[in-house]
């Protein structure tokens, strides 16, 4: 026997290897039925009902120990899948033209590159710059730019409505509005190069914001006075959550026009822009509006949801 093996053997004896282990204690009976299983589907709690009149947050959902009930887990996973699907959706190449918008394209060449290289999403590719120079109206007060941003779903959804409402609000105030256009693979700062090229006083990019859980329909707008390459975030004013649960497009357009008006008056934007005393009217977002209810997404078995379509 080797020295090491002898040592190990010795140690085993010392630790009681010669004595058999005591018998394990008997296992308890499994109680029947398991004590804390919820009937499915559960009714919504009174608290959840009351809260739903004011928020889409998932409250009043109960718990199993400190964790979620199974139907909550499934709803969460379905909503996560919706968000990921929205992120993965791309704006079709011909969408802008089909909708009567001047098509622009950033320097990005793939969706993954779009996510990892915001610097390329902030600049126009050569063909787009040439097209802009050739076809767009120059020297305007306001240049709106519709764009995909992080949700092509939102751009293709409420994007056109927001662009139309905003254009109407601006024209109603007597401002000249630039050629309607739509940019693909675009980041916020793309408005600087576009605005500079068309010599606009204010550039306003309206773009899909990053999808939330179960959504992907939200738009944001970023406005900048005297757009030029080299502007930073502190030079911009923004509005987010332009969707049915936040500010609907019509209301948002009015608020953006008020903001653009302040920029034209004060000849500045961003941090130095004084927002005190702006008359937002009902566009201020105050007052009560019922939130859009959160839709139950998962039903096992035969369709209980009248919108269900068979998956091919």
């Amino acid at each position, binding site marked *: 026997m080797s020295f090491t093996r002898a040592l190990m053997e010795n140690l085993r004896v010392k630790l009681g290897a010669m004595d058999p282990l005591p018998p394990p204690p008997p296992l308890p009976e499994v109680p029947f039925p398991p004590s804390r299983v919820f009937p499915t589907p559960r009714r919504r709690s009174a*608290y959840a009902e*009351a*809260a739903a*009149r*004011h*928020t*889409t*947050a*998932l*409250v*009043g*959902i*109960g*718990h199993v*120990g*400190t*964790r*979620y009930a199974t139907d*909550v887990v499934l709803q*969460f*996973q379905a*909503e*996560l899948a919706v*968000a*990921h699907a*929205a*992120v993965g959706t791309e704006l079709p190449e011909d969408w802008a033209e089909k909708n009567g918008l001047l098509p622009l394209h950033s320097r990005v060449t793939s969706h993954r590159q779009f*996510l*990892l*290289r*915001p*610097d390329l999403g902030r600049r126009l590719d050569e063909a787009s710059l040439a097209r802009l120079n050739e076809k767009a109206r120059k020297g305007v007060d306001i240049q709106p730019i519709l764009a995909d941003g*992080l949700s092509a779903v939102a751009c293709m959804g409420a994007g056109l409505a927001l662009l139309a409402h905003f254009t109407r609000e601006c024209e109603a105030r007597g401002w000249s509005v630039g050629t309607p256009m739509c940019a693909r693979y675009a980041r916020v700062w793309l408005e600087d190069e576009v605005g500079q090229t068309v010599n606009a006083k204010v550039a306003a990019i309206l773009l899909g*914001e*990053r*999808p*939330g*859980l179960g*959504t992907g329909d*939200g738009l944001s707008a970023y406005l900048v006075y005297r757009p030029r390459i080299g502007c*930073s*975030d*502190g030079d911009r004013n923004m509005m*987010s*959550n332009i969707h049915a*649960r*936040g*500010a609907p497009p019509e209301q948002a357009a009015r608020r953006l026009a008020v903001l653009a008006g302040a920029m034209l008056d004060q000849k500045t934007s*961003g*941090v130095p822009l004084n*927002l005190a005393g702006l008359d937002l009217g009902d566009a*201020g*977002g105050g007052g*009560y*509006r019922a*939130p859009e209810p959160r839709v139950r997404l998962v039903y096992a078995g035969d369709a209980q949801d009248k919108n269900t379509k068979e998956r091919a």
Partner: protein
Amino acid sequence: MNLSASIRGVGYRFTSVTEVLAKANPPKSGDDLAGISARDAVERVAARAVLADITLAELRAHPVVPHEIDELSRMVESTLDEGAYSAVKHLSVGQFREWLLEPSTTGPTLRALAPGLTPEMVAAACKLMSNLDLMTVGAKCEVVVRANNTLGLPGRLSSRLQPNHPTDDIDGILYTTREGLSYGCGDAVIGVNPATDTPESTAQILTRLHDVRVRNNIPTQHCVLSHVTVQMKALDLGCPMDLMFQSLSGSQKGNKAFGISIALIDEAHAKMKAMTSNRGPNFMYFETGQGSALSSDAHHGADQVTLEARCYGFARRYKPFLVNTVVGFIGPEYLEDGPQITRAGLEDHFMGKLMGLPMGCDACFTYHARMSQDELECLKVLLGAAGCTYLMSLPVGDDIMLNYQSTSFHDIPSVRRLLGKRPTPEFDAWLNEMGIMDGLKPGERFGDPSVLK
């Protein structure tokens, strides 16, 4: 100072401390975006070998943004605790790492050392550490602060309750707040990111949250995370404000993009000192996150870990009650996936704690980053085990206004039970009195928001 190394006969030569720090960093999409990362794993090790031999004194002499163009660099230099610094200045970064890991280097020693460290020293040590190294040292650090309750004691894990709403509907905010409290969340702060950044709405939300706090006698504090200038105006309107908030960046230029400067935060701090509704002595709240400097082209060729540490150098000037990194919030262009976000969370916690801050973490991902829900849940446990002061908490982790996924109301009691951690002592007593918790176990009224008035 030596700036070269060789690996298997291949020589690597670097031109500056800033370059060595950047190339020693573990892979981050943000450093790739800035064009400053190591070209491969071998060059990364070479940079680490060089860094391991650089002394802390040399790092002090070479901040990544020069004094001449950056007020943060100047402020850190002029306010450094020379006594604490002189105890470690001769150590190389490699020796410093080992000294930090020694069991004889205890929490109180690290707390005493904190004012003598520059952000560059802390970031350098971070780059030589594995995730478990970061957790080992992070867990040793003890940073205790006090407002209406006492945060950061050993064996505690706190949470911010984050009842955000896309239109600031105050009833919606309060429904979410009561739900969160009934799960034992909210001992660090009840903090709302407002959709509308005006003094009036800031004051209104603060006033209504204050009412809930007073009516239910809850030992915690509240905050509305609007821009610091907006909060100062809200104070003038005469509202209660327990904590004042601001996002920070790691360079003067980055802070300018946030619309702030040292002078402005000094002014806000002085105003808050005179007017805060909390018992103190700590009343500031700061948020940071890797990538914020680069996103405003204010990184000066430095990597995002070092710039993050510089945010902490800024924050510690004000002895804040809360600091947290919002680790996966900015997006995949800075932290691409689960491993990068996990690593960054542990790095930021380690660096903040080592600089003497009550460091929390918003462990989170945006839906366009490649991190799974399971990876995120793991990170919460890692942070809890690393002694993280607090995590966030939202209904199902879903921020319906900012559109990202964070910690949930259910996660907080789950992680606490798993790790044997409790909330702040004052809040713990309140939870037990209300029947929400029974020690570490859920109490009779757990998850029942009707327990709150």
